[in-house]
């Protein structure tokens, strides 16, 4: 456990973690110090002055909490009238030149200015002179749209491009109340993490072109999940909403803090993969190119399996640990050769040294754990002489060119078990839709060997069966995640001591030390 110090807040003794600043240390024990410019990932800048607190017997008596470390015996005043007045005054000053256009602002509902006004100010405006007018809806590039009038000049976005992406596209130009965030002329945002400035912005000054005007923040359900855009497994919130008479739709992904994986951030490409959960989905089962009932499709699959002389099973590197285990069991039960071939998911050289990985699949590490061959040679051997190919979620069109795919399908009948409508499902004899990861739960192992869990986020009006259920229906033995986890625990040594039903929020590194630690 981290070292603790005892200090006094408003005269009450409080024990907090040592070495932290007042904002973080107090925040961890549920005491809020309002702040706009400070962000744990970007450090203290001290410009907003909202976090000024009193230190009894201190020199100076008034300090910015973001720049002040906790100390044993320190006497911090948060509720003194002079501190409350400072907070009220700073809010008033933040708002005099703010357009107060909350009704048309995307940030409304998750805006620090709104929250703090309600909590720390609540006074009517005394502004009787013309406010400063600045530029609006500026295209900053990377689908970031900036409103200078809403900006509180906290410089979080500026610091993000300097400290995190090190691209430095943003700066604050001019002084005094002419100061504004801007790009250099003709040099827009140009980095693969740019949309993080939208999350970082405490107010509605930075908006995402993709999300603008789509939903009010308070209607969105914010469900924790894991991004499947690449093998990093960034922790995310899936923000979704079921509008009246409509289906549950995802409107955006936002990064969710996990110090062990992605910190506070995620990449723009990953952020946009939410669209794949909404669009181009395989909804209706198909048999021989026509829509069919679910039972009919399952029956068609069972018939195809019993009639085949040699069956190959292809599994996706995006499938969850539980799904892969179930499919492996299923393939073995019908004596089918199993392949995880998915070279097309790897974009060599695309990764960087921050979050983005070459491997665009979420769970390839599970292949290693479960001894699944994902080589081209393995796939060729599996498909050689096969007259049936059952494809679980694998978008084979990414790995094979059109003519290669055609030659594979010339000999083998294709059955697609898929959440997405792809080129492969269109060519299949039978296509069975399954739930996608936002509608399912499961475990993933990321590129660093960290085991993480995602739970069901979205509940569709017409829920699709999970992949494990479908596998079970076509002959697999495992019926659900619980059975899969029990099987995994029995079969895989490294998982033996882990309670797969209770994966901690930060995940578990599948290294001996951490596994042992959790087990203990």
């Amino acid at each position, binding site marked *: 456990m981290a070292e603790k110090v005892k200090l006094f807040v408003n005269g009450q003794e409080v024990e907090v973690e040592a070495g932290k600043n007042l904002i973080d240390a107090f925040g961890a024990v549920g005491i809020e110090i309002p702040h706009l410019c400070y962000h744990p990932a970007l450090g*203290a800048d*001290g*410009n*907003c*002055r*909202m976090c*000024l607190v009193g230190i009894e017997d201190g020199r100076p008596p*008034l300090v*910015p909490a973001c*720049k002040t470390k906790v100390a044993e015996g320190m006497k911090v005043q948060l509720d003194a009238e002079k501190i409350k*007045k*400072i907070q009220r*005054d*700073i809010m*008033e*000053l*933040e708002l*005099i*030149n703010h357009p107060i256009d909350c009704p048309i602002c995307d940030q409304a509902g998750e805006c620090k200015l709104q929250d703090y006004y309600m909590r720390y100010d609540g006074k009517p405006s*005394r*502004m*009787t*002179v*013309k406010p*400063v007018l600045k530029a609006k809806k500026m295209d900053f590039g990377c689908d970031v749209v900036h409103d200078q009038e809403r900006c*509180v*000049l906290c410089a979080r976005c500026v610091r993000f491009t300097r400290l995190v992406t090190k691209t430095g596209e943003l700066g*604050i130009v*001019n*002084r*005094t*109340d*002419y*100061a504004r965030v801007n790009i250099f002329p003709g040099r827009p945002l140009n980095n693969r993490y740019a949309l993080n400035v939208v999350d970082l912005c405490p107010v509605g000054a930075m908006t995402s072109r993709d999300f603008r005007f789509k939903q009010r923040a308070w209607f969105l359900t914010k469900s924790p999940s894991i991004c499947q855009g690449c093998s990093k497994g960034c922790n995310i919130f899936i923000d979704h909403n079921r509008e009246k008479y409509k289906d549950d739709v995802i409107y955006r992904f936002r990064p969710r803090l996990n110090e062990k994986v992605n910190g506070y951030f995620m990449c723009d490409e990953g952020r946009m993969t939410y669209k794949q959960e909404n669009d181009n989905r395989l909804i209706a089962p198909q048999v021989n190119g026509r829509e069919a009932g679910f039972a009919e499709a399952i029956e068609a699959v069972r018939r195809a399996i019993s009639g085949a002389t040699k069956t190959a099973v292809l599994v996706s590197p995006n499938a969850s640990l539980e799904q892969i285990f179930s499919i492996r069991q299923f393939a073995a039960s019908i004596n089918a050769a199993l392949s995880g071939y998915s070279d097309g998911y790897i974009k060599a050289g695309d990764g960087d040294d921050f979050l983005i990985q070459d491997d665009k699949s979420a769970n390839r590490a599970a292949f290693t754990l479960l001894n699944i061959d994902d080589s081209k040679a393995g796939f060729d051997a599996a498909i050689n002489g096969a007259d049936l190919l059952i494809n679980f979620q694998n978008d084979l069109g990414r790995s094979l060119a059109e003519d290669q795919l055609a030659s594979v399908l010339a000999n083998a009948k294709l059955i697609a078990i898929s959440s997405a409508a792809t080129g492969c499902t269109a060519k299949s004899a039978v296509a069975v839709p399954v739930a996608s990861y936002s509608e399912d739960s499961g475990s993933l192992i990321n590129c660093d060997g960290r085991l993480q869990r995602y739970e069901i986020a979205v509940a569709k009006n017409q829920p699709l069966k999970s992949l494990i259920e479908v596998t079970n229906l076509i002959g697999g033995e495992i019926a659900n995640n619980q059975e899969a986890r029990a099987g995994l625990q029995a079969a895989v040594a490294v998982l033996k001591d882990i309670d797969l039903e209770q994966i901690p929020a930060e995940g578990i590194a599948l290294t001996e030390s951490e596994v042992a630690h959790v087990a203990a």
Partner: protein
Amino acid sequence: MQVQVLSARFDIPDANKIDVAKQHGAYSTLEKVFAMQPEEIIEVVKASGLRGRGGAGFPTGLKWSFLPKNIDKPVYLAVNSDESEPATFKDRYILVRDPHMLIEGIIICCYAIKSHAAYIYIRGEYTTQVKVLQAAIDEAYAAGYLGESVAGHDYKLDVTVHRGAGAYVCGEETALLESIEGRKGQPRSKPPFPAVEGLYGCPTIINNVQSIGSLPFILTNGPDAYKAYGTEKSPGTHLFGISGLVKKPGMYELPLGLPLLEVIEKVAGGVRDGRTLKGVIPGGSSTPVLTPEEAQTVTLDYESMAAHKTMFGSGGIVVLDNTVDMVKLVENLIYFYHHESCGQCTPCREGLGWMLKIVRKIIRGEGTTADIDLLTELCDNIEMKTVCVLSAACTMSTRSYLNKFRHEFEAYVAGGAPTQAAM
């Protein structure tokens, strides 16, 4: 009343040239200085009671002693020559009339604080001054007073002139450092203080031109000779810039401690005939104004100014007579500080602009009593809530006019500009 300590060579033709300056004693202290230990010099400066001449009046020798001992980082000297406070025009005389006094002072200071690199941060608008100063530095290098071996001693010193780009806030010592480092001139949060972590993260001493310029006299004549001038707690002499509505505005060197009104009368010739004194800004635009009654008892030293709830400041005295419209003066004042706010901290960035608009509203005849009260309250709401004291410079002075000349604001609110009689 006038004395010639710092200004001894000001009236000698071509004293900015090294040959002329040397004929009149420039660089003559160096032999004595290099015979001393650096710590001894610091003690001499402490004993002289020299206080920082940039405005804050912090004891110079004490400031030097804040440098951490036994450090493996270089120590820098930054000479603050940004002289931008309205009504202040003293350092420019040193830069042009006697730059070698400054260079000699820099050598003394750097030797004392064990620094081998000094930066002179000079106000961007000082184009003539920078030329004269650079020529003098070049001469000093050629004559061996700067460079690898200062005056033949085993001591290396380089002096670099860094020009500002026209920002008042760069006179704030940490904004000055940011600017030298090539960044936007914005004050840093303190701590850490520059003596610990200053220029390029290294211990740095920042002194005003006049403070540094006082060193050759102190080292040549000893601390007691310096303390012979001025008062016990405010020893020495100061270059006062007297401006405003007086008969003989100008720069005058005076010992500290003289009565303010006597100086205005005898040195600057008093207010013009037929006019009466309305107020005095004692030390640059940021210092709270004094009424004629208060001015009666003020003497030109740090303690007397503080006792009268104002500040000695930079020695820039502005004399205001009965023709001055205090509301318009305040507008001009806030206009300046608003324009010069770096825009970093919320209160200063947003608040000064608001104050300016309220004053203008009052001047337009659209103001109300509530606006005057709001203006007063804003002074409190903004002051000392920011990283640096720029906003306080504006609010402390504005508050003084609001308190002492409120009737003029009220006259505007009541209907139009105050009449002569009302003033």
